[in-house]
């Protein structure tokens, strides 16, 4: 079971509270997690990555703990802690406003 933490705007859009949990087949990668996430919550298509190019949106980042995974290739296996569900994959919208 893979755990995902979405930013508040996307939790509202997907009508979820707290973390999202998904069954993601091995290998667990950014791409496979986002594919499962968009299958379960199609309203999130286009909000995290481009619908056609699958490129991560510029103001969105991916973290596991304190490790920034944003610039890893989308088919790179995620850390074992994320794949196993011990740690969530955290989707972060860039902080701005100050």
């Amino acid at each position, binding site marked *: 079971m893979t755990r995902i933490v979405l930013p508040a705007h996307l939790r509202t859009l997907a009508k979820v509270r707290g973390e999202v949990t998904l069954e993601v087949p091995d290998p667990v990668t950014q791409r496979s997690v986002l594919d499962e996430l968009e299958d379960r919550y*199609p309203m999130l298509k*286009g909000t995290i990555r481009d619908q056609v190019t699958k490129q991560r*949106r510029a103001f969105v980042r991916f973290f596991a703990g304190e490790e920034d995974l944003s610039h890893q290739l989308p088919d790179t296996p995620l850390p074992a802690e994320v794949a196993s569900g011990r740690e969530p994959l955290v989707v972060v919208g860039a902080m701005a406003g100050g």
Partner: protein
Amino acid sequence: MSTLRVLVGTRKGAFVLTADGNRSDWTVTGPLFSGWEIYHLKGSPADPNRIFASQSTGWFGQVIQRSDDGGLTWAPAGNNFPYDGVPGTHQWYDGTPHPWEFARVWHLEPSLTDPDVVFAGVEDAALFRSGDGGQTWQELSGLRRHDSGAHWQPGAGGMCLHTVLLHPDDPARMVVAISAAGVFRTEDGGQTWQPSNRGLHSEGIPDSDAEVGHCVHHLARHPSNPDVLYMQKHWDVMRSDNGGQSWEEVSGNLPSDFGFPIEVHPHEPDTVYVVPITSDSEHFYVNVLRDAMSVDSLEPAGVYFGTTGGQVYASADSGDSWSPIVRDLPSVLSIEVQTLP
């Protein structure tokens, strides 16, 4: 008695204001889609309970929301706006080539007769059509592929297609406006387009009478007189009596001929509303943006506008007197009024 529904798009969500035909006591619902920019909401004339909303942020991109119950409940619709083919480039502010990139939907224009048909004007400038109630979108790429397309440049707010006028008698005829390319019209449902800027005169561009390149802020027309178009240009208020083939200035004695919105009185096709503001270096206070004015169809006519200061003002007597019907909203981006039986 009729009911009024005012759809308000703001920088931080949408609001729905309702009142009976007396237009004196208003109920405010919202915010909907809180925290997101709502550039525009508009109801279908063919099914007024079907309302489309453009929801976006710079972080998470574009979402289209649709309500089929007059705004009580909403569901996301399709948000994929793919340019047709390889989009190529237009000109950037400095004249260098810049790739065509979708940024957001500025304006949604539902068909006058078919609730499943809706048009979207987007940034970077293009026109999309949906025939399935907003689930999927196809570009009418003849517009962007016009010979002049590679030379279009953005206005200060981006290169947006912000106005779509549908002809009341002929769905094949449309007029659109783009900042800062100007006006284009089609008579074949969007396959081919002609620039419609003859008579416009713009200081500050190399050729002040150019066929393309004018900063048109908004257009309006009255359904009883579809060949008469009105325009608020960056400077100048203009009128066309031939469906946009040529224009004449009608700024007259306005205190300023700069502004953004323009609307036509619902019962008097020759009565036009604009909001003159001083520009460009004297924007000290609030502004009224291009899609932030609308009229109802009651008698006497109601006129409504929203400000970047978060007020929505209404007049129930065709503009003779005004009062705020709500204030302290986020900055208002758009206003659309529905007059319901």
